[in-house]
């Protein structure tokens, strides 16, 4: 099952080439050119990871991160930034970001992080199903 990614960045040229490279790595990619558009997509779709630009017009990445986590605390968010200050890094982690990477990001590193998230989710889902099956069997006297 492929990873579902939402890319949020106001640089359309960046969105276009990133999504193409990710799709070539068998990921399902949706894009949003603003934090507002990204938040609307999270309302209506399910994503494994959101990749979010830190510095955007109208609503910056930290504010968007806060709102994304309010909508879905389980959602994993990776922030991309041109230049992270220590303060921003600390704030991002406090708000629950998975990671804060500096642009230009290494695609292999990013892909690895995304795959780790997917794997963790699948392990958690498998464990939950195992528990459910155990309970069902126990209730039938197995």
């Amino acid at each position, binding site marked *: 099952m492929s990873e579902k990614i939402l890319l949020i960045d106001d640089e359309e*040229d960046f969105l276009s*080439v990133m999504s193409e490279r990710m799709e070539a790595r068998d990921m399902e990619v949706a894009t949003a050119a603003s934090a507002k558009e990204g938040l609307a997509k999270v309302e209506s779709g399910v994503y494994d990871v959101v990749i979010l630009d830190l510095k955007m017009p109208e609503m910056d990445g930290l504010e968007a991160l806060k709102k994304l986590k309010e909508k879905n605390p389980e959602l994993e968010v990776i922030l991309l930034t*041109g230049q992270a200050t220590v303060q921003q890094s600390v704030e991002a982690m406090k708000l629950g970001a998975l990671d804060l990477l500096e642009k230009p990001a290494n695609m292999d590193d990013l892909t690895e992080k995304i795959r780790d998230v997917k794997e963790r989710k699948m392990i958690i889902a498998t464990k939950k199903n195992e528990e459910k099956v155990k309970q069902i069997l126990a209730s039938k006297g197995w």
Partner: protein
Amino acid sequence: MSYQYEALGEEGLRFFGKVTASIAHEVKNVLAIINENSGLIEDQIFAASKGRPIDPERLGRVCQQFQKQINRADQITKNLSRFAHSVDQFKGDVDLTEMAQLITSLALRTASAKRLNLKVAETSTSAIVKGNPYLLQNLLWVSLLAAFAACENGSELTIFAQSRGETGSRLELRSTPAMDITQAAEILAGQKDLFSAANAKLVPDLHNSNLVIELE
């Protein structure tokens, strides 16, 4: 002279920091796009090594993207250079329209936070003042920030640089729809020292809700 240096000190450093940080951010964005397009070529080469044909049309688009980003970076660097050279002279002739064009280029990203459309009006006659170029840029920068705060989202903000003949020149910031001129004036009231050092006067046009700066 020392008074101008003081005015340049705190506010000037703040201005310097904001502008250079903004430029650095823009450059990083360009590098990120170039990096990803370079990676796309690597992906194509890897795919070709596995027997998949290279897509010449796709590579052509990558080359176009490289050119686009190179042109963009070139413009960013030109702006940075002009900004850097504004401290070459302590006092000199400053073409206000050229200055406004530079500062609006540097302020575009900040303006985009409120989807403002920023323009410099073309003029048939030059408006030239004798002053400290960096200080005057700083003055226009803080005036623009005040105007941004006072404008509605999506407004069109135009800067007019006009000569007042022997009495000097003026910069006028006009917004459509009109900005909240009292809000802008209140923000700029805190920049009295900067205005004094630049021999400038804030003369808000309350009737038309335009921000006017008169320069001697």
